[in-house]
């Protein structure tokens, strides 16, 4: 009797936003607070930005505030290019943010105050992780599930895993495909999808594409 394969259990992450009560009304205050707020707050404003839908021209809340509220497009552009999933830790992300802001403040030492009500509000989150009741044993089931799960589910397995697993490079999907289904080529193709360059919906479509292509090629193959 064949040994049963370990199934992939889909989980989801829901984040409840918690206010730190801290706010910045100009770039100097922002810089000062970035240096002292907890790791959870930096994590929320950078890594978790992707959970919000990644719908704007920015990749974190700081760059969005710099672009949309401070109207400092050059700074926004630089902050946008900080990739939290390439940097190894929240500490490294914080350091990069400070380095970019310091460089900007050196060139433009007198930042103006923002109009009232448009301050930057430092938040953090408490995340609840739960199984969504979907388990898959093979790629066909995986494809069907992928079509129907919420974006919070894809975020958990594709983005959050990179931080959760502490390796900074791997997502849950490709780990399962490589280590349980033993399909390294397919796992590598999923790993080649750049999390920084896509919305969650687009990640869903890309994964679907590569898995579908793999399954099709597999079915069309000639049995020897």
């Amino acid at each position, binding site marked *: 009797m064949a040994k049963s394969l370990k199934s992939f259990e889909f989980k989801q992450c*829901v984040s409840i936003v918690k206010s730190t009560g801290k706010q910045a009304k100009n770039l100097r205050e922002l810089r000062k607070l970035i240096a002292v707020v907890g790791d959870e707050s930096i994590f929320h404003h950078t890594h978790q930005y992707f959970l919000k839908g990644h719908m704007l021209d920015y990749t974190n809340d700081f760059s969005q505030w710099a672009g949309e509220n401070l109207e400092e497009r050059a700074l926004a552009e630089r902050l946008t290019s900080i990739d939290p999933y390439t940097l190894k830790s929240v500490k490294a992300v914080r350091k990069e943010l400070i380095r970019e802001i310091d460089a900007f403040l050196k060139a433009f030492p007198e930042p103006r105050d923002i109009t009232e009500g448009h301050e930057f509000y430092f938040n953090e989150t408490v995340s609840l992780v739960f*199984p969504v009741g979907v388990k898959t044993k093979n790629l066909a089931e995986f494809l069907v599930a992928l079509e129907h*799960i919420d974006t919070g589910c894809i975020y958990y397995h594709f983005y959050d895993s990179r931080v959760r697993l502490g390796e900074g490079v791997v997502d849950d999907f490709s780990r399962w495909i490589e280590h349980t289904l033993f399909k390294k080529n397919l796992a590598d193709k999923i790993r080649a999808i750049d999390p920084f360059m896509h919305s969650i919906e687009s990640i869903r479509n890309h994964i679907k594409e590569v898995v579908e292509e793999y399954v099709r090629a597999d079915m069309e193959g000639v049995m020897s």
Partner: protein
Amino acid sequence: MINQYSGIAPKGDLQLIHNLCKKLKGKSFLHVNSTREGGGVAEILNRMIPLLQDLGIDARWEVIEGDARFFDFTKKTHNALQGNQEKFTKKMWDYYYEVNKRNKNNIDLKADAVLIHDPQPAPLIDFRPRSGKSIWMWRCHIDISNPMPGCWANLKKYVIKYDTAIFSVAKFAKSLPIDEYIVTPSIDPLSDKNRELTDYEINEVAERFKIPRDKPIILQVSRFDRFKDPIGVINAYKIVKNYNDCRLILVGSSATDDPEGEAMLNEVKDYAAGDPDIIILLLPPDYHMEINAIQRMSDIILQKSIKEGFGLTVSEAMWKEKPVIGGAVGGIPLQIVHGLTGFVVYSVEGAAYRIRQYLNDPEMAIKMGRTGKEYVRNNFLLTRQIRDYLSLWYINSNRGKHVIEL
């Protein structure tokens, strides 16, 4: 009951509600506010309490009682917390406390979790039963980003005794020594205001209110209030009219407690006089289905406010896949992701420009409408708010953790 939302609300939200209710099964959840009818809080509680009961939570909803003197005072605090200058005396604050003290005799405050809504019942925290490990949360539904300092200082004395405070928007939160969470308001997709309507229902409303449908309809639904800028909306429409034929509908409900409303309505009527393409409707406050139908027959929906709390009419319009334009105030920018789920504007000219853009590019309008509906589905439905309240209860039972596995 929660299954009614299957296929409408995100699956994950419904799943988490189920999972949390399993963990919290049989426990009691008390909500206290100051009115059984009218207003967004009562609307949500009316729907939420039976849903929670159906899921095995011993949910209760109690309403504090007060006399005219009490409610006059709480109305003043409401205004002062939103930035108005009001006069208060110690005697007034003492009476506020006294009425709450009287209410504790009529309300069973024993529950595993207690959610007190808004300032009126806030002093009930002083009568928190000593026994047991109950969790007390204070939920602020109003904009207190810029309150009258003296008023906030008096209220804060009670707020800091709670385990947790909950605000609608991050900028409403204060620097407090207790945990503060952000829970945005929501719309109920199954209510008369938002449910799907048949063509027959929509046509019937169009006929009843004599709304011709021969040209594109631009709509704003809101009280006739200066802060909703109805005159600005007419001015924007007048600019558009130079380029595109269209019709403007302004719909508001008659608020008997708003003496300024009638004056504003008359001003709007005078300003619109002589233009047969401007329709002004004053509807009773319970004409939810009718407003739903008018929203659904419209082509573009505005909420051109110059001051706003959260502005849920924007989410209501987005839920109906309508392209929206909103003023950049209050919670409107949280609902409208500029250029993606709608447009945020800062002026009459800006509003006119965006209306013209929608009218001239119907494909873009359709796309934004669809994106907007998905955005509301993921962020502003009632099920998400229920999910958040239950999550906060559970988080409070697991304090100190940033990730909680269920």
